């Protein structure tokens, strides 16, 4: 008789260990073209916004030629409605939009996630109260709410950040609550409760890590939206005030001269467009990666 073969009854788990699921998600997101394009766009425009001022040939308030002059060696993109160098103002103009939008998004996320988590896990009454409060804020288009605030207090920057943050929070809280409610039902949360884990530890340790994926996607959506909203408010004249250099403000200021000298409008408009497209692509890349993992892709 042939000799018995070596039998391996208990297979060792021989594949290499995997990193944290969030890392896996980001890696998988990165592998998509759209994410790469998005990251490039965002880095480019953030670069312009942050480093721009150091590269500007003139000061943003200096008069360098006649209004709406065509591009020349002094003013590579021509001049604006008052004769200031468009290129310099453009290089200076990104900081405000970006900075305010980031701050507002951060506030909105912090508020929204907290409210969403608490609403999903706490009692039904707390859930009702919190979500009704969010509904009241959601009953307004954000722009309208911001404008009402501005009508009352005036165009203060802190007000803009606050209002945009407050209008962001309900949407974030809805997404957080929606995803968390499904997690709360799962047995591992019950297991933690049975062992007597504190509520805070359960929210932060069991629930939050499991809603990280939809939250990442939502964060990028909110950032895209905040940039748009802040820029729109400046465009309408309620953000930074003249003579400050701001992309939104520039677009409105130079509208009259579109038929003569379009650069004063085109440069900032393209910048905002590319920035929002970039953040949106990144968010979509993460969303697809997350859907792919859920459908059973595991680590490939």
């Amino acid at each position, binding site marked *: 008789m042939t000799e018995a073969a070596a039998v391996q009854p208990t297979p060792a788990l021989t594949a290499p260990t995997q990193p944290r699921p969030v890392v896996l998600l980001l890696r998988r997101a990165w592998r998509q073209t759209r994410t790469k394009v998005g990251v490039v766009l965002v880095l480019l425009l953030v670069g312009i916004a942050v480093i721009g001022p150091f590269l500007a040939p003139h000061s943003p308030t200096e008069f360098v030629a006649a209004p709406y002059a065509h591009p020349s060696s002094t003013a590579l993109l021509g001049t604006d409605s008052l004769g200031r160098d468009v290129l310099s103002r453009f290089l200076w103009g990104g900081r405000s939009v970006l900075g305010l939008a980031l701050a507002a998004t951060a506030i909105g996320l912090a508020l929204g996630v907290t409210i969403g988590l608490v609403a999903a896990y706490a009692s039904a009454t707390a859930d009702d109260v919190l979500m009704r409060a969010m509904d009241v804020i959601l009953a307004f288009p954000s722009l309208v709410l911001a*404008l009402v605030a501005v*009508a009352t207090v005036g165009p203060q920057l802190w007000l803009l950040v606050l209002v945009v943050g407050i209008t962001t929070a309900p949407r974030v809280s809805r997404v957080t609550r929606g995803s968390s409610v499904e997690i709360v039902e799962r047995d591992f949360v019950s297991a933690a409760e049975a062992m007597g884990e504190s509520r805070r530890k359960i929210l932060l340790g069991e629930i939050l890590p499991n809603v990280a994926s939809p939250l990442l996607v939502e964060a990028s959506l909110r950032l895209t939206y905040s940039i748009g909203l802040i820029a729109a408010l400046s465009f309408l004249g*309620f953000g930074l005030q003249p003579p400050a250099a701001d992309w939104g403000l520039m677009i409105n200021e130079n509208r009259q001269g579109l038929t003569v000298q379009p650069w004063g409008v085109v440069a900032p408009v393209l910048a905002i467009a590319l920035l929002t497209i970039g953040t949106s692509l990144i968010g979509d890349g993460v969303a697809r990666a997350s859907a792919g993992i859920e459908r059973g892709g595991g680590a490939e």
Partner: protein
Amino acid sequence: MLHGISGFIIRRLLLGLLTLLLVSLVVFAATQALPGDPARAILGRSATPDSLRALREQLNLNQSAIVQYGDWLKGLVTGDLGTSLAAHEPVSQVIGKRIENSAVLMLFAALISIPLAVAIGAVTARRRDSTFDHGMSVGLLGLAALPEFVVAILLVVLLGTTVFQVLPAVSLIPPQDHAWEHPKELVLPVLTLVIAVTPYISRIMRASMVEVLESDYVEMARLKGMPEQKVLWRHAVPNGIAPTIQVVALNLAYLAGGIVVVEFVFGYPGIGAAFVDAVANRDIPVVQALAIVIAAVYVFLNVAADVVTILVSPRLRTSLR
């Protein structure tokens, strides 16, 4: 009694009204935080103390906040929206015609974007993962990311002033005419709004159709030997529609806010532009009135979304009885 479907509708309407009431409270409270004196703002620096006192009397500024709120609310309901600080006319007169103009804009935008978005969503769902689908997905994503004013400005640059010059960059409509009598002036604003909402609706349509087409019951229908047409229209679409309707209503509500910027860019004589003017002029009565009008449209469309969703889903419908 508040039972069944009609009971549900009534309850949702009441809830909507309650929300609107809360909203009105917020609007009123926000505008009360005004640091300053409306009477002085109206009469100017050179006003005498007597005239100031008289005007304050007239504007009820001496009453407590609660009474002022009550009066204002009463006025809202009866149609007396106060007097514009800038135009010195009743607010209702200032905004009356403009409401019609804005409604026209929203209506055209809705009539074009909804069928378009549903069609795109259905087609891309059917042809999942094809080049067409991928292309549309990226394209719509990009369009959805752009803020409305950017879309508006880009359209103006593209079609109005710089690249081509075929459409007017400004929508000047004489105050006595109806908006639909000037189609050329309507194109760009409507197009902007359509671009603003179509991507969202079509994405939801696609997502829900994909989910339905991959469901067990659609597979079962095919395994039963049902013809493909019946599978699509009798089995798939009725289930795919429910989430889409919600999003359609929400996006229409979104339009109510979107017109603010769009009308400003094109100088279109609607309530959006009026709103921006009022804010710039700190014309509080107009701001309050328009905020409530816009919020009312928003709330109503949200209620409609909830109601239609329930009516369309048998599971939810029967649980109401």
